[in-house]
């Protein structure tokens, strides 16, 4: 069997981590291609239901990344977001979701190297968790009757 | 056993954008299995559930007349999840229609009578079907004088222009088409439907009125008909409630003991007067 390639949904702030990903690209820093990026105007926009939706649909991991505290383009969006993350992180960990499946980071648009390192770290840890079989919706059983 | 939840597979044959804001589109469907067209035997005033795979179903009045063979027409207003998805589908796409559902306008009991048909906005669909059906050579001689009153916001919002322009040229139907506000280049009538009706309302004797439109239009049209002497049992209306199954089972379209989908959607005003106004 080939190695497990996880699917990770990444929510990046437009003003920092999204730029860092760009910079990593133009700097030819290679990183694993396992994540699908959703661009947010600010991590403050991140509603926990987005994260649940990703897991429900079978994401093996979710990665949220925004501006360093104090650097928010909207002054304090990430401070508010941080409080949400604290609760969300605790809640999911408490009910038994491996914390390696839900990762958070602060990466500025200049930190391409941190982006590369973090991307590798996220994917490596999700790989270690294995496929998400327990925290997702059941596959639709189509079991169509045979057509005569 | 015949499963009433199972839609007939159809192909979108054509899509016509009907209004300047593109919120109305008329879909022409062809049955994939020609036998299904015979099974889908309907009369004007009935509706069907348009079934978009993976999205859901919406109940829509049938805009074509059974006298038009080979296809069925539905005009869909874009409001919710299913209708928005449907608006983005393309000719050739495969979906389903389930029906016909509900009761038609009582064309049998109206035989021998004059009929005035009053349409507001895009509720004209099932009334367009009714007029096409009434004007068909097999049916026309069974009815008296036919009057068609139709109003919409602007010339662009008037649906089925080819049809009513053709009817205007005939002498076996009186056609009055109006827009609500004057616009350059419009030579027809101007004014809300009740006002137009007041002007031209045919005498009540041996005449039935069929009204379809948004609640406000229905409400304001009734006094005009009362004034002209129409009795509640001769005022026929079509209700629109939220529906899911269309079979009188799932329960959400109840108006009193009646299920709008199974027992309606066509009711006389006399019937509605005995029911709670929950529509």
């Amino acid at each position, binding site marked *: 069997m080939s190695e497990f390639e996880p699917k990770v949904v990444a929510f990046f702030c437009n003003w920092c981590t999204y730029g860092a990903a760009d910079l990593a690209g133009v700097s030819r820093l290679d990183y694993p291609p396992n994540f699908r990026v959703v661009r947010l105007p600010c991590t403050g926009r991140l509603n926990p239901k987005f994260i649940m939706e990703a897991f429900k649909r079978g994401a093996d991991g979710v990665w949220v990344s925004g501006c360093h505290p104090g650097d928010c383009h909207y002054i304090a969006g990430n401070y508010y977001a941080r409080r949400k993350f604290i609760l969300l992180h605790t809640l999911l960990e408490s009910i038994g979701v491996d914390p390696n499946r839900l990762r958070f980071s602060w990466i500025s648009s200049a930190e391409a190297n941190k982006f590369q390192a973090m991307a590798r770290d996220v994917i490596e840890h999700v790989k270690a968790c294995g496929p998400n079989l327990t925290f997702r919706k059941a*596959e*639709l*059983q*189509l*079991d*169509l*009757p045979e*057509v005569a | *056993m015949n*499963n*009433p*939840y*199972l*839609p007939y*597979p159809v192909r979108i044959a054509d899509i016509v954008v009907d209004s300047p804001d593109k919120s109305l589109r008329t879909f022409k469907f062809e049955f*994939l299995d020609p036998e299904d067209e015979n099974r889908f035997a309907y009369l004007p005033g009935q509706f069907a559930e348009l*079934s*978009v*795979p*993976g*999205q*859901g*179903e919406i109940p829509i009045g049938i805009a074509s007349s059974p006298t038009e063979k080979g296809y069925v027409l539905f005009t869909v207003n874009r*409001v*919710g999840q299913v*209708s928005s998805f449907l608006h983005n589908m393309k000719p050739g*796409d*495969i*979906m*389903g229609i389930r029906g016909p559902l509900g009761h038609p306008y009582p064309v049998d009991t109206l035989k021998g009578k004059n009929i005035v048909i009053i349409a507001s906005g895009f509720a004209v669909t099932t009334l367009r079907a009714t007029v096409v059906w009434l004007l068909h050579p097999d049916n026309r001689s069974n009815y008296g004088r036919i009057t068609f009153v139709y109003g919409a916001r602007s010339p662009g919002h008037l649906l089925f222009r080819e049809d009513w322009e053709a009817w205007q040229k005939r002498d076996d139907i009186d056609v009055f088409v109006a827009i609500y506000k004057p616009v350059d280049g419009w030579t027809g009538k101007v004014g809300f439907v009740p006002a137009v009706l007041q002007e031209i309302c045919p005498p009540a004797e041996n005449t039935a009125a069929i009204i379809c439109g948004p*609640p406000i239009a229905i409400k304001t049209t009734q006094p005009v008909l009362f004034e002209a002497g129409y009795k509640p049992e001769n005022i026929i209306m079509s209700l*629109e*409630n*939220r529906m*899911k*199954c269309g*079979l*009188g*089972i*799932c*329960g*959400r379209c*109840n*108006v*009193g*003991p009646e299920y709008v989908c*199974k027992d309606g959607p066509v009711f006389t005003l006399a019937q509605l007067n*005995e*029911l*709670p106004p*929950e*529509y």
Partner: protein
Amino acid sequence: MPEYLVKENALADFFRELTQDRRLLTPQGQGENCRLEETDPSKVSLEYTNTHKSPKECFFPQTEKLLAFSKEADKPHPNEYRDLGDKAVATVIFGLRPCDARGLCVADKVFQNDRFTDPYWKGKYEKTLKIGLACLNPSPQCFCAAMGGSPFGEAGLDVLAYPRDKGLGLKTLTEAGEALIKTTKAEPGDLKSEIADLEKKAIEAQGPIDHFVAINERKIMELYKAPHWPTTAEPCLGCGVCTFFCPTCHCFDIQDEANERGGIRMRNWDTCMSALFTQHGSGHNPRPSKTERIRQRFMHKLKYIPIKQDGVRGCTGCGRCVVMCPANIDIRSVAALMAQTQAS
């Protein structure tokens, strides 16, 4: 139809005989945990008041798949919905309370109405033999007799059983029920007068509630315009617990779920206590507030269904909504208010 006896020492064999070519569901557990379950014939309990949920879920599960389509299927067409069929298996339910059996009759008239037949309901309903268990000691919150039923009611049942000397008394009610009991070693016996006595006692234990009759005499619009609806509705939380537990409530929502390979169409229980239930796509809502919604529920149970079903009420007096409602909106008190409505 004749009566039969099953003695205490023959009880386990009797249940084993019932399962010969069908599965057996009986109530298991007490109180909140009492539910209809597939049962080991040696462990059938006769000691319970009511199942926690009504038995409608055996015929109309909370979530039921109806149709499915595949985007890939090329026969006959991709995206064409196909019937998943009715997967009903031959079943016998032992221990339906007479109120719940009547509830199934009311729902059956909706699922198999004057114009359409619901194949998913019909399959399960017709493949299930229903053995009722009469109530010798109705619960204090029961009022089946006031709703036109009886603790020994027979509607909707194939066989009516009752506990008798740690065994059972049986009365067969349909040909199918008679045939079923004939396959067992139940002994014939004459129980007519015993049943009549027990029924009388059980009805007397409930005490009379007579205001339901007055509702029949009021017109729809008189009851609809009654002044008490806003105060009746005021404590309502709008949760719909009453509808989910009701043996006659049958409303559902149809939903599609899809992925990249295809999708299914399913139905899920829905409740008229929710504002979304009737809300149009345009935002217009014929029942915009809980006053209209509460009125709808009680009018439907006590007025609309009797009109459509020859006087049979949509409430069978099982008492579940009375006990479960967190705000204590009690159908008996509401009916009393409706009965007081003045004729116009």
